[in-house]
């Protein structure tokens, strides 16, 4: 592989490029969907994607699904030409931050490789979970299990002499349970995901998760609807994670260069207060056990944790090499792409809000009348975050009160993030998907329970 990729970048340089890189990704994946105990689909697949990026004043980019030398060299030729033509039409040439070349091979760690597990064994696990959920109560009318696993073999080669191979596993199970009693319908959603192999399905105990989800769904049938209006609100770790992810996306230099875009709120705000002092936000693609893990980003830069926001102040954006040059910053391994067909751009991986030393009890003790929201059913993120939660509880005089059905809430990042009063000392993470075209970035958000002085909620 290395020789072929090196010949491709060498050819780009011979043509006159300032820089070139080639990315190849071979993805082995399995998806299984079981609805109400019946198999809806099973899709085992192997996908090969590759791309060539050439810098000559501006970027030329071509993607292909073959890595034969002939195809690669032909693509280099075309890519160089498009860069050259494009460069004539831009006011300012694209420059990239210099980095030291790296040679490395990152192999699968101590995991149970999902490629070695027969599909019937994976299906048996899901069938058992499905059966367990449906056997909880006759009012469970629908169960929907979406399982997927993948192993990505990634290759990166640059004209500066970097050559990196990295293998990344990912396993995910998304569970939807619906209960019905008369006209009342209740839905809950569970997610298990990590950059891990099949062992995740043991340690995350999907059987137990299924049973609990089914129990919660049935319990919520008789719960009251939450009130509408502005209340002191405490959100659980998953909802904090959603807010962390949305805020994290706004710290991308890519969006900061597009102030008019939905995620461009933090444009020009470096060194300024962008949220409450209670919030310190980190993006960490290197932490074991998280839904997203990589050692090197899509530009071959070693990944490291970055504190984008410290005590409410925007300290840095996350960068690609191009944006790092523009902002005179360092690229620290946060360029991502759904696969090798897409151009890399700086996107958060695991956006984490830092915990404090307050216990949950201490967090809610001064709330006289408020709402505690748990679980994310669905959400849209951006400058305005809209989220439908799974369930809620009243908080009365610092104590958790009666359960409530899920509520919707709206967070206006430009105002409500200043309303965060405090965060607790616990931690959990919400695995999510960030969709682009028909592909997605696995991402996650995490953090502690978080308290808003006031938030607008609707029943």
């Amino acid at each position: 592989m290395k020789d072929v990729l090196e010949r491709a970048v060498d050819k780009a340089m011979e043509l006159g490029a300032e820089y070139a890189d080639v990315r190849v990704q071979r993805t082995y994946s399995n998806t299984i969907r079981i609805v109400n105990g019946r198999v809806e689909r099973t899709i085992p697949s192997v996908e090969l994607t590759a791309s060539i990026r050439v810098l000559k004043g501006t970027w030329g980019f071509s993607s292909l699904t073959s890595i034969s030398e002939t195809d690669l060299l032909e693509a280099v030729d075309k890519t160089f030409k498009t860069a050259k033509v494009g460069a004539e039409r831009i006011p300012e040439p694209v420059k990239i931050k210099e980095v030291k070349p790296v040679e490395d091979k990152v192999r699968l760690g101590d995991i149970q490789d999902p490629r070695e597990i027969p599909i019937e064994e994976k299906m048996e696990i899901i069938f058992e979970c499905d059966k367990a959920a449906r056997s909880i109560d006759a009012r469970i009318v629908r169960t929907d299990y979406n399982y997927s696993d993948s192993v990505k073999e990634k290759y990166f080669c640059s004209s500066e002499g970097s050559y990196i191979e990295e293998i990344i596993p990912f396993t995910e199970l998304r569970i939807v349970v619906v209960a019905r009693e008369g006209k009342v319908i209740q839905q809950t959603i569970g997610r298990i995901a990590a950059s891990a192999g099949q062992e995740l399905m043991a340690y995350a105990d999907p059987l137990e998760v299924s049973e609990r989800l089914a129990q919660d769904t049935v319990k919520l049938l008789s719960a009251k609807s939450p009130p509408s209006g502005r209340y002191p609100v405490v959100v659980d770790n998953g909802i904090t994670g959603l807010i962390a992810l949305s805020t994290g996306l706004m710290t991308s230099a890519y969006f900061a260069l597009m102030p008019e875009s939905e995620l461009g709120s933090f444009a020009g705000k470096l060194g300024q207060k962008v949220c409450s002092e209670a919030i310190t936000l980190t993006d960490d693609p290197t932490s074991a056990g998280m839904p997203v893990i990589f050692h090197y980003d899509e530009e071959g830069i070693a990944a490291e944790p970055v504190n984008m926001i410290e005590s409410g102040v925007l300290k840095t954006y996350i960068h690609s090499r191009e944006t790092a040059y523009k902002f005179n910053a360092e690229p620290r391994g946060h360029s991502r792409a759904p696969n090798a067909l897409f151009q890399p751009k700086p996107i958060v991986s695991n956006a984490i809000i830092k915990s404090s030393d307050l216990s949950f009890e201490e967090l809610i003790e001064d709330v006289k009348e408020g709402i505690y929201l748990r679980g994310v059913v669905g959400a849209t993120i951006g400058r305005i975050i809209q989220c439908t939660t799974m369930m809620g509880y009243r908080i009365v005089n610092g104590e958790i009160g009666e359960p409530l059905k899920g509520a919707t809430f709206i967070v206006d990042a430009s105002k409500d993030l200043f309303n965060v009063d405090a965060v607790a000392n616990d931690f959990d993470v919400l695995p999510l998907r960030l969709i682009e075209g028909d592909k997605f970035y696995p991402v996650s958000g995490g953090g502690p329970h978080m308290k808003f002085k006031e938030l607008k909620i609707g029943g």
Partner: protein
Amino acid sequence: MVEDIASVVRDLSSLYGVNSVVVLNSEGEKIYSWHRTEADQRRFQLSGKDIKDTFDINKEFIRLAGGDQLRNVILRGRENIAVIEQSGSVIVFAFTDMRANLALLLIRVRRVAENLAKRFGGALI
């Protein structure tokens, strides 16, 4: 009864990588054991008491840590995995090598323990 137990245990022993399965009653007496090969049987030196004591120690451990009921004990060696699960008056022990699908192993150990408790629970006491 042994044949009936064997038919239930087959759900577990048929799993790739499982080398030994032992069924105990709540007193820790071996009611049934199965080993994939004679070599596995010769290597196996655990008594019913060893298995029950390990489960009980962990039960106490969880309690002292502030937890509730212990569901199972999972021990991971470099090359092997041991699982002990109790359901009612039945304790099931499985010993596997690393080729076994751990997620499925846990599901089947639980299923076998529950099925044995359901069918023979009273008789095993």
